[in-house]
């Protein structure tokens, strides 16, 4: 009893002190805006690219687009200029922000915007938005991004979390405090060996980022990350669509006079491809009807028999032969659209 009361007393004192100390220490005003804060700068590199190259077709997607479509070959087969904006590890939040802050801002506007996706990526706004993915989003996001903030972050937090982020500095500033603790641990010992922050970061990059991963572990990591896309909640199209970035992407493209084309690429993960489940089929049927209603072209190659497993280098990515095969298949479909 006494021990518990002492604990409560000390905890109360620590929390009270944190209320005053943390906002001063980290220079964060409280109450603060819940969710992450984007910095003021927004990268405009794709605007320059579009205005210099004047593409007729712009493609958006992640690494599956990078390995799946050869833009030069597509250009040759369609007779149109093609630019591919593929960002490995990107998802719908990133595609939305690039469309909003780069593609529609450019003076030249492409005729067609192709978005390459798999699974439920188009209606999963909270997919790939934390950690390293946030850094990527922050590059292209402006300071004030209410739609991005709401759909990618706030919609996925409960009321207690939102309240705590706003009014409880210990919780609201925890990302910043964690970064400080982490950097103390990470840089201290190497620092004694005359390896500064840059040297330490370079070593981390050399060992972890540029190195090959053990195939089994890589497969498991990819499977674990992809599982999110095939949960019953994500497969519920009607529940997900309005809170996703898809309606905004359709609106922005329409306002700029760009024809949006949505392309589903086959993959070998459970839930799609040859092993497509009933709920996935229902999801795709709902998505197809919605896109049709909105005037968006949907090219579905998710079950295309021409893309056999011999064309995949892993569960998600096509190999160089597969890239050529799929580019030809896509060109066929696009030529129909471009007519």
């Amino acid at each position: 009893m006494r021990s518990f009361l002492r604990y409560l007393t000390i905890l109360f004192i620590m929390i009270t002190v944190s209320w005053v100390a943390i906002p001063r220490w980290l220079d964060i005003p409280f109450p603060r805006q819940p969710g992450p804060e984007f910095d003021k700068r927004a990268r405009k590199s794709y605007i320059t690219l579009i205005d210099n190259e004047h593409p007729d077709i712009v493609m958006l997607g992640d690494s599956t687009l990078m390995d799946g479509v050869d833009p030069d070959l597509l250009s040759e087969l369609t007779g149109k200029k093609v630019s591919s904006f593929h960002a490995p590890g990107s998802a719908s939040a990133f595609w939305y922000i690039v469309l909003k802050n780069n593609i529609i801002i450019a003076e030249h506007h492409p005729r067609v915007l192709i978005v390459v996706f798999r699974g439920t990526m188009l209606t999963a706004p909270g997919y790939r938005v934390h950690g390293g993915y946030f850094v990527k989003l922050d590059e292209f996001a402006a300071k004030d991004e209410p739609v991005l903030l709401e759909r990618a972050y706030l919609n996925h937090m409960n009321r207690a979390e939102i309240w705590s982020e706003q009014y409880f500095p210990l919780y609201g500033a925890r990302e910043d405090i964690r970064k400080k603790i982490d950097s103390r641990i990470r840089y201290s010992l190497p620092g004694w060996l005359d390896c500064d922050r840059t040297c330490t970061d370079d070593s981390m990059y050399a060992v972890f980022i540029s190195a090959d991963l053990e195939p089994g572990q890589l497969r498991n990591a990819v499977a674990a990350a992809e599982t999110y896309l095939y949960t019953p909640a994500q497969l519920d199209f009607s529940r997900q669509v309005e809170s996703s970035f898809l309606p905004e992407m359709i609106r922005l493209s329409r306002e700029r006079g760009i024809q949006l084309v949505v392309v589903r690429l086959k993959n070998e993960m459970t839930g799609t491809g040859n092993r497509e489940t009933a709920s996935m089929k229902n999801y795709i049927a709902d998505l197809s009807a919605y896109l049709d209603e909105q005037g968006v072209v949907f090219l579905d190659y998710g079950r295309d028999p021409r893309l056999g497993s011999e064309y995949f280098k892993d569960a998600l990515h096509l190999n160089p032969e597969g890239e050529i095969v799929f580019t030809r298949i896509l060109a066929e479909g696009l030529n129909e659209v471009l007519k």
Partner: protein
Amino acid sequence: MSFTSYAFIIFLPCVLVLYWLVKKREWQNSILLAASYIFYGWVNPYLAVLLGASTLLDYFLVRGMQSKPVRKSLFMALSLVLNLGVLAFFKYYNFFNEDLARLTTSLGWNGDFLLTRILLPAGLSFYTLKKLGYMIDVSRGTLKPTHTLMDFALYVSFFPQIIAGPIERPQKLLPQIEVQRTWKAEYFYNAWTLIVMGFFKKIVIADNIKVISDQIFSLDETSIFLLAMGTLAFTLQILADFSGYTDMSRGFASLFGFQTSENFNLPYASLTPTDFWNRWHITLSNWLRDYIFFPIGRSLKKSRIRLPQGLILSIPPIATMFVSGLWHGAGWTFVVWGLFYGVLISVYQLLGIRGDWKPKSPVTLGLAWFVMFFFIVFGWAMFRAPSMTWLGHILFHMPFLRSQDDMIVGLIALSMFVVYSTPLLIKFFLDKYAKDGWLLPAYYAFATVLIIIFLNASSPDFIYNQF
């Protein structure tokens, strides 16, 4: 449902209030049983159906044993086949399914359906051992079975223990289920420190040190030095993760008026492998000792074939630890890890070093500790490695250090190990020398502040949930 999920934060107080509002034992047990099935079937209700069906089956097999004592062995054999069959199917199916599909296709049948991967129901390994222990004790006549289905079902499914133990023996848990429980403040005072420490170990220590160990073990190849540092990090991760889970489990059980078993007693302070298994996952070790080690030892001693003393000493630990390895999962890494401990225990025993061995000389003591700690860490390298081929390749073909980068990253892992193990050492000394006073409450308050700072919307699952 996970102890670290938001759903559980709402679930627990609701169940607690309901549970203590009712006074009758039957009602309390009904609430706990319903809560346990909701907890267990939260993500996948089919798991609760499997649990219910297997519980019913064992309950009626025990009833059969009682009504027809002549056929006791038959009922016991049925229970063994069913329990071990279900466990083996879920645990090892994915290990063999591709070979099975190939075989059926070669015989002219379409074996594609066999390629579907089967998800191992969480906690299956734990509640199967609980049930088997109960069945064996009843068939041996060392345990009087409960006549109430609800009590038996609650013993099997008790939610603080269903996912990852402790593997409570019926002799300890059933008598507590069968008596009236009235609220006492001491239940809470016993629980809160365990709960704070459980969350602290999991959220602050295990989830953070996990980052570096996961990264090192996911590399295609690495140097021996980096592997050693990654394994050191994993050594801390698995202790903090599993003992954190057990602390929470014991704390939550205490809130409902139950006293449950300890699973850890300073395992990394062990001097011998037997000592280690007396301190690590104690409830599993006790289960294996009573139902595998002792019976094998007894049958070898009674055997008509005269075996050399060395074999009589070696076979039981090797067989027991082999089973322990298999129990942990389908994979050569677990099997070799189990066998490694089996051989180690045998060698120590053949050298005359028993589990309770404690040298008087501090130098010998220090050396014995160091050697055993080295074996423990080496064991975790096998346990955590993606495959034995991967581990063999690094140990036999890779240099000790490949570059300055390996050295720097290894030092980061070492820093993390030192920083995140320090709170556990401090706790050990506070428990020993400052039990009363303000220091221990201050430690818990600081731990709570750190829990808030490191709180994540989705904490990774506990390691032992996969077994």
